[in-house]
């Protein structure tokens, strides 16, 4: 990966070029992903306690200001997804059994996987909620 490891650039290297900034954004996705994972971990924790403390925490998670944070985190999570899917063709073998695999095919498969996983999770939760 091309990364500005040259320390002479100083810690503000990510402001120097658009390509540097995109690298910074990609690394910054981790902070939002970690935050959402910890929020979800605490939701599981509260689900193991009494209903009152669970609902208090859930209402905090669903507070309008928190929803704004979740939507920003969602944008960062999707940025991770997109950047991760787009580098896959350069990380995988370009030929299988002597035949070239088009990059667009690899990328398309991954987005199909994302759609399938998302749909399964959403349908499962909706089904549990509806029954």
């Amino acid at each position, binding site marked *: *990966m091309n990364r500005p490891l040259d320390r002479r650039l100083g810690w503000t290297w990510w402001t120097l070029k658009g390509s540097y900034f995109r690298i910074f954004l990609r690394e910054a996705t981790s902070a939002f992903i970690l935050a959402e994972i910890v929020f979800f971990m605490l939701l599981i924790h509260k689900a193991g306690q009494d209903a009152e403390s669970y609902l208090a925490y859930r209402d905090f998670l669903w507070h309008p200001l928190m929803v704004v944070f979740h939507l920003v985190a969602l944008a960062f999570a999707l940025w991770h997804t997109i950047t991760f899917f787009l580098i896959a063709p350069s990380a995988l073998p370009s030929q299988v059994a002597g035949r070239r695999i088009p990059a667009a095919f690899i990328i398309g498969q991954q987005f199909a996987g994302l759609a399938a996983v998302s749909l399964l999770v959403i349908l499962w939760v909706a089904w549990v909620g509806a029954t």
Partner: protein
Amino acid sequence: MGRCNVSGRSHEPLFWSLFVAGSVLAALFVPALILVSSVFGAFGWRWFADAFTYDGIRDLLQHAIVRLAIGAVIALIAVHACHRLRHLAIDLHAPLPGGLIALVAYGGAAAVAALTAVFLALI
């Protein structure tokens, strides 16, 4: 990512392979996880609001297989995020020893994984 280790004895390959596994899971699961647990219900969409009542979430997490899967997914995503945060701290020239940054990052990931396992077991 990371530096070359001249001696060849580096833990980087281990963390990197866990990182990539977590990257795949984060790419696939995190958008849907955010939407169902934190957005759709907050919008008042009935099925999702009903799925996150007290009884609803205990139904969601009822099966051992579901709990195992959620625990594994969260643990690997935590390794992914902490590994990348470690590199972000290095790249932003955090004025801390590299060993300390690594300890906090991987210690944090291990703590999230362990706590999630405990919380899932306690439901």
